[in-house]
């Protein structure tokens, strides 16, 4: 609106000669146009930029810096030392405690994920029924998740106390000898897996429940009419229908399971500096990393462990990805096969 005035003032100029004001307006318009083009082109990137800037600062930079640290001799107190190439990686790979920690991590991971998923599936299918006070039951399975892992570890450390803990007292009533929860390797893994299960089962239950509610009811109804029992419907309808969600739950459980730290760190706080049992019976890889960095003060090797763990998680993630893709393609293949069959039947009918 502001440029209308100069334009009327310039109206007396000879036609054909572009007035300076006119040119002025055009450049301004062009500028505005290019601005809006820039806006179109750049804005989306700006909108998503905060995530990437944050990721670069808190994710990418530490990742790269950790790699730099892992290639140096780097004591905690003295700081950066000589460049040593891949020596830290070689030392860590040759360290029996590293492999011990990998074994412990996988063992605790299996002991926690498998029962956790099984129980979560059963709980979700129960909650999927027409229960009274449904919301109450659904909220209560999530309750353990609200408690921080530290509080969970504190409570369970007491429960699994070897001399006068709840569990040993209870099994003592039926005449079983006390179990050495903090000394025996398998027992300690079971104890830690119990903490993980207690906290995460409810969370997974709700995710699986959400998926189950998306399964069409008429499938269940027609199967019931055909005479399929509850168990049959659970295995033949519910589980196949929620397979993608199950895969998601497995992947998140894998990532979480490979990073277990608080529970083993706090299970036996003062023994040997809290590094996961006197003989590292339940030292997970992250706890081993912590020991290397902050207890033994070797940042170089700790950084190498961090990278090896990162690579391990990527490798397991890729395996998961491959499996979930195969399952997805099996699904689509099955659907298209079914569609073809139906189409063929339809064509046969008309012919």
């Amino acid at each position, binding site marked *: 609106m502001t440029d209308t005035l100069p334009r009327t003032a310039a109206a007396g100029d000879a036609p054909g000669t572009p007035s300076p004001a006119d040119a002025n307006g055009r450049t301004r318009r062009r500028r505005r146009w290019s601005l809006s083009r820039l806006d179109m082109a750049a804005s989306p990137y700006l909108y998503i930029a905060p995530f990437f800037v944050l990721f670069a600062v808190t994710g990418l930079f530490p990742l790269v810096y950790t790699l730099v640290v892992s290639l140096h001799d780097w004591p905690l*107190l003295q700081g950066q030392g000589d460049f040593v190439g891949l020596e830290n990686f070689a030392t860590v790979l040759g360290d029996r*405690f590293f492999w011990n920690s990998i074994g412990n991590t996988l063992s605790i991971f299996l002991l926690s994920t498998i029962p956790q998923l099984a129980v979560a599936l059963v709980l979700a299918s129960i909650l999927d029924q027409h229960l009274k006070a449904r919301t109450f039951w659904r909220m209560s399975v999530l309750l353990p998740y609200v408690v921080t892992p530290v509080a969970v570890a*504190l409570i369970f450390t007491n429960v699994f106390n070897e*001399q006068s803990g709840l569990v040993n007292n209870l099994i003592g009533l039926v005449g079983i000898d006390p179990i050495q929860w903090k000394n025996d390797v398998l027992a300690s893994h079971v104890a830690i897996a119990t903490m993980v299960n207690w906290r995460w089962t409810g969370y997974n239950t709700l995710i699986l429940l959400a998926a189950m509610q998306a399964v069409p009811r008429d499938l269940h109804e027609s199967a019931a009419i055909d005479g399929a029992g509850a168990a049959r419907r659970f295995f033949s309808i519910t589980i196949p229908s929620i397979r993608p969600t199950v895969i998601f739950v497995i992947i998140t459980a894998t990532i979480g399971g490979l990073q277990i730290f608080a529970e083993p760190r706090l299970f036996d*706080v*003062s*023994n040997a500096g*809290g590094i996961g049992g*006197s003989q590292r019976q339940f030292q997970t890889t992250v706890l081993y990393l912590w020991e290397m960095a*902050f207890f033994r003060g070797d940042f170089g090797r700790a950084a190498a462990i961090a990278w090896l763990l990162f690579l391990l998680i990527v490798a397991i993630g890729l395996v998961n990805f491959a499996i979930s893709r195969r399952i997805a393609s099996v699904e689509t293949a099955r659907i298209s096969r079914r569609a073809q069959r139906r189409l063929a039947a339809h064509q046969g009918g008309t012919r």
Partner: protein
Amino acid sequence: MRLSRATSAASIAAGTAVLALVASGCATDTATGPNEPGGNGKQIELTITTFGTFGYEALYEEYMDLNPNVRIVANNIDTGGNARTDVFTKLGAGSGLSDIVALEEGWLGSIMEVSDRFVDLREYGIEDRGSDWVDWKYQQATDPDGRVIGYGTDIGPEGICFNGPLFEEAGLPSDREGVAELLDGGWDRYFEVGADYLAETGRAWYDHSGFVWNAMVNQLDEGYYTSSGELNVEGNAELRARFDQLAEATLSGQSAAQSAWDWNGGQSFVDGTFATFICPGWMLGVLQGNTEAGGGSADTGWDFADVFPGGAANWGGAFLAIPETSNNKEEAAKLADWLTQPEQQIKQFEAAGTFPSTLEAQQELAANPIPNAFFNDAPVGEILAGRAEGVIAQFKGPDDSLIQENVFGPPLQALDRGEMTADEAWAEALQLLNELVD
């Protein structure tokens, strides 16, 4: 190591705080910036981090009353182990340390490698006070360049805590003097009486072998390191002989195989699980706290005898140091200096049982014995003053606490549970030494 646990809940809470710090790499304790040191009427905030049972709370109040312009923000970490992690992490990060940090004798070896990160207290006149302390305490705080980085707080002369009623049951003398006479001698004598006690009652003699081993090593002229800083474990005949002695007693059942710093929530002090306990001065507060946590009281019968197997020994003791990162060095030095004066050390001793490191305070305690109601009215100050005589300061190398806890800890626990022979345990310790210390 100087650690203590008041209650397991508190310890885990504090341990968690440390973990949170470690995990986030964040610094919480920072001195307030703009205040001028020396503050003429200006408000000054001083931060201080201690650990275990330090007994400073009342002293902070007193100092703030004397100096209205100073506000002390205190932080106490549950155990020495967690405090070590806290200090080392913040040193590594280059920020976050309080204006005053308590350092423990056991990690001084590592700290001395970066002693220039702490203020040379000679700038604040510590040299004039040099003769206040027992000479070895002052020496320990002096780095190879002659810089003095710590005001000594307490030392840990060791005596034997024993349970009178249990001794009586076993037909042994149960009064303080009688026990001191009974146990007078070397470790062989201690284990000999232990064997008698075990035969008589079928119960353990000491709580676990780790503490006994700590005392046996601390008492030697040279421990895990030679005085010149060389590792001194492999082929050390004296160390091996002591290890075998301990292993034999442990395998015969004299150890109660307790987990240290827990003792089944303190109950093992109450239910007669073991009859004797290694007691440096500061451990008296730990023993009392755990006994009370386990439902016991003065009637449980713990007492403190003026005797220690194999002669004088020291375990632990702390220093107050001022990091170079502090913004209030001068005021911090004043406070640390005041806290370690003989008068204040006596008050600290009364609050927490930490035995003073200054000569004047020691003499005071020896001259005016105060009966300790919890320990059957034993004059613990007087006894500890006697136990402090003849203590030699052993050189602590950079990995001393690591060797104690993680090299010898696991094999000793295996001995406690009877899973290894003495030879196997020693071999395991040497293997761990090669793997963990380089």
